[in-house]
């Protein structure tokens, strides 16, 4: 279903609960990983969009969120268990104007960068691209990845990949 919301990309492999999306022309490649949030008599299956970059020496995690109390005014980061390399990446992410422009309109629930010393992985989870299923009262709905969110997502992934690659 999510492939229909990403017309500029094609699926190029994958496995159980994941798929690799590559651009038809120019653009960013990324993976989509399914994550099921199970609840009592209900579940939400969300899509997590992942870009991975080889980058040695960075370990820890960075959480990115919007700044502001009622409306979005920028991006802010918070590092956990991060080494100096990771702290440096956090600073770059927070200061990058292009990333801020791309991510401001993005309705993300989770935006995280994790380093394991060998590579760095950015994961974005959105409101769209999700299936909500509830047993009682019974309902099921696919929340689309709407065009504005798709464009913002692709722009954000592009900028994140650039920053993490050290370009």
């Amino acid at each position, binding site marked *: 279903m999510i492939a229909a919301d990403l017309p500029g990309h094609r699926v190029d492999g994958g496995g*159980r609960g994941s798929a690799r999306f590559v651009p038809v022309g120019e653009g960013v490649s990324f993976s989509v990983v*399914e994550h099921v949030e199970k609840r009592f008599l209900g579940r939400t299956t969300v899509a997590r969009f992942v870009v991975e970059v080889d980058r040695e020496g960075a370990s820890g995690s960075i959480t990115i969120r919007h700044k502001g109390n009622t409306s979005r005014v920028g991006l802010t980061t918070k590092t956990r268990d991060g080494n100096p390399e990771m702290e440096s990446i956090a600073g770059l992410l927070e200061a990058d104007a292009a990333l801020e422009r791309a991510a401001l309109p993005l309705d993300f629930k989770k935006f995280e960068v994790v380093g394991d010393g060998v590579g760095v992985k950015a994961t974005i989870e959105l409101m769209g691209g999700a299936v909500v*299923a509830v047993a*009682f009262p019974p*309902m099921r709905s*696919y929340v689309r990845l709407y065009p*504005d969110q798709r464009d913002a997502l692709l722009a954000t992934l592009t900028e994140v990949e650039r920053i993490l690659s050290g370009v």
Partner: protein
Amino acid sequence: MGGREQTDVTLEKAAVGFPTALATAVGLIIAGSVLLTAQTGFGAGGWVFAWAILIAYVIMLAQSASFSEAAGILPTAGSVYDYVAAGMGRFFAITGSLAAYLVVHVFAGVAETATAGVFASFNFTSLERFQESGSWWIGVVLIVVLAVVNMLGIRPYGSAEIVMTAVMWATLIIFGVAGIVASKKSSITGLFGESFVGTDLTAVLTMVGLALFLFVGVEYVTPLASELRDSSRNIPRAMYVGVTAVAAAMFLYGLAVARQVENVDLGDGTFILDTPLAIPAFAEAVMGGFGRVWLGIAVLLASAATLNTLLAGIPRIFYGMAKDGTLPRSFAYLHPKYKEPWVGIALVAVIGIVGAVILDGDVPSIINLILAAVMAWIFSYILVNISVILLRNRRPDIVRPYSTPLYPFPQLLATAGLLVAAWYVAPPGLTRSDIYTPFFIMLGICAAYALIWTYAVQKKDPWKPVEPEELMAVEGVTRD
């Protein structure tokens, strides 16, 4: 989530299959409004209600055949909307899906909030003074707390959620089995006790509406056809297992309560099995005072968990509707820090609060609401059956991974059964107008909205069926 001809992406198997069906069936019993319905049915009807469940079970089996055929033709997430749009056109699709989702949520969601307070006032002695009136505040406090938790993005995931869910299910299994295995404490004759609503065919039919409500949620055990390999075999299997599991669970519950609770007169002409007092009485009979508290906590936890699922899931659907232009843009607002759709969460909570305050724990009014929700389901189910038949006539060429056995008998049987259930929807003590009035008002609103939306906004012909290929293309889905 990709096109299936391109990749082998599938969902976790844990989301489907027999364990899910069984877990859902058991979990549904403990949902407050389902428990109240089962209690009311068995309390008033005894063995007559057991027969009504059997009839409802047969109707649901036949209905499952329709859903399975439709799901095979249209393996999308749109469910009722897509099936009916393909068969009957957008007007009926929008009206039917609004009835199936929005109306049912309003009615059943309100009932769930109200019954949380009702059961708490009967299960916990410190809250007994609210049994007559005022129990609404319990449900209101519950939903306000849960709304705040969801607004702050707090998720009781991982071990906390698993433990809580496991405790609820274990509670039900333990009490159910203990109730059947333990020596009988009541003086009932027969398995399910006597009927106070008559014993003729009419009496049975008047209980079928209530019995149908017990099967609410059975569609949940059916994953999306696009999630499964060999969906033509696994979809109907999952539905039949789910329907059977629900019926079995309800029979066991009725049996356990009838064996353990003596149906005594409470002094005002009301018998205990007619009231929610039967639940704590059952718990005490099985496990004493400790059992009463244990089951009371489990029922309250189940109400909280059910409402929490609604507060977590429905605002996201509202978000999608806002992005679509179906709802105001404010429903697409996410709080910058907490990343939650506050407007949608607030609306879900307000609907529950307003409804609970108005109902104020009045069980007959709650039952009215539940039966109005049943009417909404009946309406949407009949539309699906008609759509399956119309699609067979109009598009015999289309690939049907699953074809209803003995077609069109299941569709006709299910439709006839549902129409009969709709006609006899009012059990003794209620009138049809008590249930028809709220239902038809809501249906009229849904129909008016469907006409305006299709003509003025979508600018499409509301009566022209949509080709299945077009519906699937929208979601980028293909069949196996």
